[in-house]
């Protein structure tokens, strides 16, 4: 199940953080935790009241629904928070880290570290915990999941809660770099490209896909004429679909007929 509103959930998470940290003046860590919690609850309810209705419908219905939800989220965020870019203070704003010749701002370093921690936590959750394995089981064979007594509907809602919570973390990490505005979720399309290149369902694959796209964009910006930087992610996506459509680390093996 692909969620095309994931980027917009990220945007909502960032806006909640703007309100909590920027407007209410909560400490950054507390604001982060509360925003993640708020989005997780939102994700759970979104599934329980909206997405559950399309369960079992063709994949296409789910794609259309999530794209539509994305539009709604952007419009609502524009109404509530406005269209001007906003931000909030972080403990690491404006500082930078020097490693030999390389200078990395703490903002970028936090994204790197945060992503890494998130990946390890998710990986351990899906491989080691009972609920995590049950989530894998449910995605692989829903009927069999029912038969072994997994509460399939609740598991789906929890998956959405996790995914919205993760989106909030991403939004908060990204906020100091890209600023918070209703359109910030469009970066999700690049993330989608990264997931396709890496292979759906594979966390290391998504990381590698993201890394490839990031590097390619930077090189395209330096060595190729203007405009190629924006195009490069999609160029690579098309190339990957032609050469290795199942992704670099495919979890889903295509059935041979």
């Amino acid at each position, binding site marked *: 199940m692909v969620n095309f509103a994931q980027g917009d959930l990220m945007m909502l998470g960032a806006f909640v953080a703007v309100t909590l940290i920027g407007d209410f003046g909560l400490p950054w860590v507390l604001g982060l935790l509360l925003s993640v919690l708020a989005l997780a609850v939102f994700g759970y309810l979104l599934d329980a009241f909206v997405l559950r209705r399309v369960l079992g419908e063709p994949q296409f219905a789910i794609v259309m629904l999530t794209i539509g939800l994305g539009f709604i989220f952007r419009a609502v965020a524009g109404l509530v928070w406005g269209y001007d870019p906003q931000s909030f203070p972080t403990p690491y704003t404006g500082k930078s880290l020097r490693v030999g010749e390389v200078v990395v701002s703490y903002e970028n370093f936090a994204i790197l570290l945060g992503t890494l921690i998130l990946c390890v936590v998710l990986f351990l959750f899906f491989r080691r915990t009972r609920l995590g394995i049950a989530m894998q089981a449910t995605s692989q064979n829903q009927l*069999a999941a029912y038969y072994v007594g997994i509460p399939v509907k609740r598991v789906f809602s929890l998956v959405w809660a996790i995914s919205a919570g993760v989106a909030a973390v991403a939004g908060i990490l990204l906020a100091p770099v890209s600023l918070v505005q209703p359109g910030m979720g469009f970066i999700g399309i690049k993330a989608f490209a990264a997931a396709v290149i890496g292979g759906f369902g594979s966390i290391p694959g998504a990381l590698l896909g993201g890394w490839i796209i990031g590097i390619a964009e930077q090189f395209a910006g330096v060595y190729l004429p203007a405009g190629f930087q924006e195009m490069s992610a999609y160029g690579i996506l098309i190339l990957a679909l032609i050469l290795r459509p199942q992704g670099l680390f495919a979890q889903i093996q295509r059935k041979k007929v």
Partner: protein
Amino acid sequence: MLLELKNVETYYGPIMAIRGVSLAVPEGRIVAVLGANGAGKTTILRTISGVMDPQKGEIVFAGEDIARRDPDAVMRLGLSHVPEGREVFPFLSVSENLRMGAYSRRDRARIAGDLERVYDYFPALADRGSQQASQLSGGEQQMLAIGRALMAHPRMLLLDEPSLGLSPILVHQIFEIINRINEEQGMTILVVEQNAHVALRHSHYGYVLENGRVVMDDTCEKLENSPDIQEFYLGMKDQMPRGVRRWKKRKTWR
């Protein structure tokens, strides 16, 4: 009676698949439901385990009416369903598949004990604990599906065509193990089968289903000797005296 169906009717949309079926499964017995393709065998099991809801009728398990309950609720009452066609979790390992069978349980020590027992019934699985389920052979996947159902420590097993797509030797092996589970644990089993030969040999009581109706029920011994069953389900042709065969014999229940 551990499980009793009373006049159950189930529809697929406008099509009536089960036309008022009543059957009873006594505790500690193996009961077989025989029937051809499309007779409604699988639908009966789905209706019992709650994947489909009956339009009419009662399903009583251990004194409780379980008709129209969710499958996971029915399962927690002690009814484990092994679906048709080895529905395993393809990308989980064998041991993870088995552990998922015990999802609704918390008593770790007894889960470990049940895992030992499943490996004892199916030694082939013990050697492949860390392999992905999709890499197992058809027979092993069927064993895994049965083993996973046993991990729930059920009071009763529902088996849907355990012989489907397996070689005769494997079919025999699986039914031997089903008999062992029944004898050693006193497990009540309702098995649905097309392969009447094997099913009749390994069960105590049988129901014959045709077009969603029970047309005959008796002990398996008597069913095996019934001329109708012999001709239509066991494929034995009766030779009339002087080598004359009636061109078309009619079933006596019609």
